[in-house]
């Protein structure tokens, strides 16, 4: 559905690249995640793929359309949920969806149904200007599903939402996955990437460091960590050590020999830990 080859982008059209020579492919029906800290270049990439930013360098096809040529009709198959919600404050929730739906040439979903889906039932006739940030975000998210998109762009779909609502959004995404929707999802939340994505790209400073399935990543990097809790000077100390690292191995035996061990178990690495290991930086 998406093919990106050697994509670079510079906002100032100079050597400072927000996205630097990245390549990846997204298969049909797949949910592809862009995981990286803020400023990594995730939104920039999404904005290029959705045509909001002009393609400067690289070969990109989206839904079979070459981005170098203008094909407005491709948006009939595409849905975009924005990082920053952008709905008309002067229009009600329902009007926002109703008018947006008219812009497509394809059959669109019932606004009421979508509003209910994101938990905004009862707010159909309320102007979006009166909504909280989270509610606006949900409306923006709902709007992205109006045209039953085959290809769905989700920029930080759960960021800033309270956990219960984030869970609803995740359920909706899973539901769409079952229907075969292809998704491009950006997030700096490792749980989202882990739970929702078939494959994840680690992106930092505009560069992709690695692309794999969360499962493979954990197989490769996981089960090699040991969490140790021990008592030292009447205090409980926690350490996480790698079983494959010579230095860490020595440290484990030191601790076992010298202190009173409270708990000790091997564990699966989280995507964040793997991210840190791969990129040397955290996700915040």
């Amino acid at each position, binding site marked *: 559905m998406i093919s990106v080859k050697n994509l670079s982008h510079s906002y100032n059209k100079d050597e400072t690249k927000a996205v630097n020579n990245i390549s990846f492919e997204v298969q049909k029906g797949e949910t592809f995640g862009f995981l990286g800290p803020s400023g990594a270049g995730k939104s920039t990439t999404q904005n290029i793929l959705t045509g*909001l930013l002009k393609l400067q360098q690289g070969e990109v096809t989206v839904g079979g359309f070459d981005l170098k040529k203008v094909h407005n009709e491709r*948006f009939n198959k595409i849905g975009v949920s924005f990082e920053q919600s*952008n709905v*008309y404050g*002067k229009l009600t929730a329902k009007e926002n969806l109703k008018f*947006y739906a008219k*812009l497509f040439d394809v059959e669109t979903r019932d606004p009421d149904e979508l509003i209910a889906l994101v938990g905004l039932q009862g707010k159909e006739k309320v102007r979006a200007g009166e909504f909280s940030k989270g509610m606006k975000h949900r409306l923006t998210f709902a709007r992205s599903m109006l045209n039953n998109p085959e290809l769905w762009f989700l920029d930080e779909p759960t960021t800033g939402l309270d956990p219960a609502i984030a869970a609803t959004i995740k359920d909706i995404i899973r539901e769409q996955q079952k229907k075969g929707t292809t998704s491009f999802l950006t997030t700096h939340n490792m749980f989202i990437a882990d739970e929702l994505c078939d494959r994840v790209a680690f992106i930092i400073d505009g560069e992709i460091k690695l692309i794999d399935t969360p499962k493979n990543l954990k197989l490769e990097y996981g089960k090699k960590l040991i969490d140790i809790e021990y008592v030292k000077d009447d205090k409980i100390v926690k350490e996480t050590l790698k079983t494959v690292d010579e230095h860490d191995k020595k440290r484990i035996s030191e601790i076992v020999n010298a202190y009173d061990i409270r708990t000790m178990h091997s564990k699966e690495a989280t995507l964040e830990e793997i991210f840190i290991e791969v990129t040397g930086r955290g996700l915040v």
Partner: protein
Amino acid sequence: MKLLSSYIKEMKIAARGFYFYVELGIAIIMLLILLFAIAENPDSKSKEYLFNDLPDAMTDAFVEEDIEEGVARWADDAELTLKPIAFEITNEETGELASYNYDEEKIVTARVLEKVNTQTGALTGTTYILDNEEDMIRLSYAEQAIGATTSLDDTGRLRYKYYLQGYETDRMVDLLYVLHNEDPDVFAASFDSQQVRTLDTFGTLNSRQGLVPLFVAFAGSLMGFFIVMAYIFLDKDEGVIKAFAVTPSSVWKYLLSKTMVIMTTVVVSSSIITIPVMGGQPNYLLFYLFVITTTFAFATLGLLVASFSKSLTQAFGALFVLAIMLMLPAFSYFIPSFDPVWLRFFPTYPVLQGYKEILVVGGNVGYVLMYSGVFLVGGTLLFLLANIKFKKTLTV
């Protein structure tokens, strides 16, 4: 369809917003000013200036006749101040142009004949009789009143020369002809040598109506220019343009629907100002054609300015300069002697002129049509430029 629904949406947003009411409020205030603060004719009693190039006995004989009939009476002689003035007049028949330019103030004495209503005895007008033609002409243009010279031709027939302001109705001009054609003796002479001269300004507009072009140009086109920008910046703030950009609908539809909203608003606001003041007189088809084409051009100019900036604050500098420039021609409107050629290149100049021509009886339809075309073409070009620019700067 997309355009229509987009237009309906934008209208809804506008109607729930602030600027729409600002625009209508300004139109209503302007109307109130016109109706209550501006007198229709500051001096409603008619004035005329006469020079009788006749033997005194003849003049007196005419006046005596009127006095006997009870339609006129002598009043005390008046001292009149002739202010410096410059004007041009054209001979209607020959098209010959004459320029007058007076730098010095001058005081003259005129005989004053008051015209009275025979039934009520009320004063209906004043005739000032001057002792030379030049002063008469100068006064009649300074006071914007009718002037006339009566003389005898070689065959001893009366000959009339009228100095009109150009805003007298056709009916009145016809009346002048008919008046003197009643007497078959006068007919040939007066008709052949009739010299009606007009001054090339204003129209059949009284002083209240004379302000309508200015107010409509301001509350219409100029406001459209500002408000379209306000709308665009509101949208940029909300980021909704980006949402629009990821639909199969094109940016130009978005921009055009905005422009259409402005045109609708301006049709309403210019009607508020114009209809109560002008009544059924103007050709409204022509009026709305001009309202729509000029507003289109100004709104698209606003779009283009908006396409270059992120926010209203950022656009402020350009806006300020443009606003001043667009308002300059208004000065020339009030000060007829300030009319440099370069001013005609400001787009508001033909807007003001155009409205004048529409509202005046017998105005220059060709001028209005030509500039409607110019504004339509110019607006289209600006629109295309704005469209290109917007496509590039959607994410800005």
